[in-house]
């Protein structure tokens, strides 16, 4: 089961990286959603899957009966989901506003903040294009 989930996790990350690197804001959002879920799954699998008792203490016991499931990874995932959801909402709105203001969803065409400055046309352009792609590829 762990092997299967690990493979699925890897596939999700691969797909999300492909989407994020394709240079389109809409695809980037889908990639982000997929990557967030892949990471949640990763934490879940890394915390071990086991069919045991829930981590609850019987009314008359001092310590819970062994063996019991580890609840911490799920607590981490829950936190990550909440934070991820908030960030995703922000990204949706930001990208929509960017689309309204810049009239494009292609990252290659988004050059307003890094205009060519005449004397540094080539240099500045190069840095910007790398900015959209370089770090993502590096992380992979």
């Amino acid at each position, binding site marked *: 089961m762990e092997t299967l989930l690990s493979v699925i996790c890897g596939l999700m990350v691969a797909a999300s990286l492909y989407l994020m690197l394709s240079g389109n804001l809409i695809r980037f959002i889908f990639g982000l959603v997929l990557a967030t879920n892949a990471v949640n799954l990763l934490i879940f699998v890394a915390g071990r899957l086991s069919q045991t008792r829930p981590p609850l203490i019987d009314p008359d016991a001092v310590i819970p009966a062994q063996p019991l499931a580890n609840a911490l990874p799920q607590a*981490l995932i829950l*936190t990550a989901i909440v934070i991820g959801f908030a960030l995703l909402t922000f990204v949706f709105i*930001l990208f929509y506003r960017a689309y309204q203001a810049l009239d494009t969803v292609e990252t290659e065409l988004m050059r307003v903040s890094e205009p060519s400055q005449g004397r540094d046309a080539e240099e500045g352009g190069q840095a*910007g294009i790398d900015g959209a792609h370089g770090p*993502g590829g590096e992380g992979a």
Partner: protein
Amino acid sequence: MSWLVVLPVIVPFAVAAVTLCLRNHLRLQGSVAISGALAHFVVCMLLLARVAKTGMVTVQIGSWSAPFGITLAADHFSAILLAVTGILGLSVAAYSRAEIRAGMLAAGYQPLLHILIGGVCGAFLTGDLFNLYVWFEVMLMASFGLLVMGGEKQQLDGGVKYVMINLFATLLFISGIGLLYGMTGTLNMADLHSAVQQVEHKGLLTAVAALFMTAFGIKAGIFPLFFWLPASYHTPPVAVSTIMAGLLTKVGVYALIRMFTLVFIFDIAFTHGILLAAGVLTMIVGVLGTAAFYEFRRILSFHIISQVGYMVLGLALFTPLALTGAVFFLAHNMIVKANLFLISGVCRQKAGSFELGRLGGLYKNHGFITILFFISAFSLAGFPPLSGFWAKFLVIRAGLEAKAYVAAAAAIVVGLLTTYSMTKIWAEAFWKPAPAAESGPEPGLDKQGSGQGDFWLYAPIVVLVALTLAMGLLPGPFVSLAGSAAHELMNPGIYVEAVLGGGR
């Protein structure tokens, strides 16, 4: 439990909550914001004094003993950075009074600024890896808001790039946390120090270390992960780019130093070797990048990258002297870099542009700001007797002692190149005659002009300049503080003992 450790986090959040409630009473909100920043500064200073006197202070939140609860721990390193954060927070809060317009204030500028400061302080204090992730998120959320606030085209464009890469870094960071937990069963940093030693497959652990390195590297802007920084830092209002330039990348550096002195120290030759190469390349590429630009804040943005290289170099050399240098450099750079951003804002107020081509004559017309720029710029370049000289001296000397001659040579050359680009700003903006004012000030620039506005513009800059002079002329106490921090970083046993106590 010591309240002093918690207060640097609580105060900014309390201020944020109050200023949020006062968003329809801007005068009152402004007073609360600046007094809140002052209170935060005082609290941070008290904490530094306490740590300098009695050593490391820790708090177990909710009295859940470590490693089960969340620990806040202030060692010398954290306390120094908190103190600088307090200073920068106060400076930017003061500068904001002169720069930030009513529209942005009504949109919630003050709460976001204080949440950002609180998030940074939380990240400096926490002793729990997952908690560090949460503070990163708090900080990021606030910085996203500040960066795009106002909604200029340029800001949205820069904001998109900033948000994209930072979210990606966050995903790497949390993947690393998940995997590390799977291997060790703990997320308390002090507990991780020993748990990591017991992991069987060190190779896997190194892979996880690389995940953390990449994630923090993106945040810190080290080579080759920095391209988002010069794309976004010059777009928001000056107060915002100042606080981001002063604090955000430095949190990435802090996390790198913390993790790679406390947890990932089982394969120093490999991990710190990568950091050494990355540090040197970051310095060189960053400073060469500035040569291409003729916009005040874009030049400064590339310098942030270059200077981060020195700090990473200090970490990579991994000797007490090198870490002393890294800590000193961090504090020096936060102050000077933030100050240069503030000065760029004053130049724009006075001469109407960030473009060096359209600036000019500042030396003739505004002598005072010229002196302030002169001191800060040459401190950044590392001229004695300013703080930058000692910072670079410590790192370079450590490089020579560690026989890393290439790195030391690179550090010296980069210092010279820094002088070159500071000279460029000097010659273009300050020395050359003002260009014919055919175009007038840029749109969107409001002339404050009143004496009140000028006081808030200049006061933070004067204070920060005084600080860099003090650090340069009387480096003794500052270096010895940084030395204590380095001593604790090199002996993780002190941190572990303070957090976990004698119980284990």
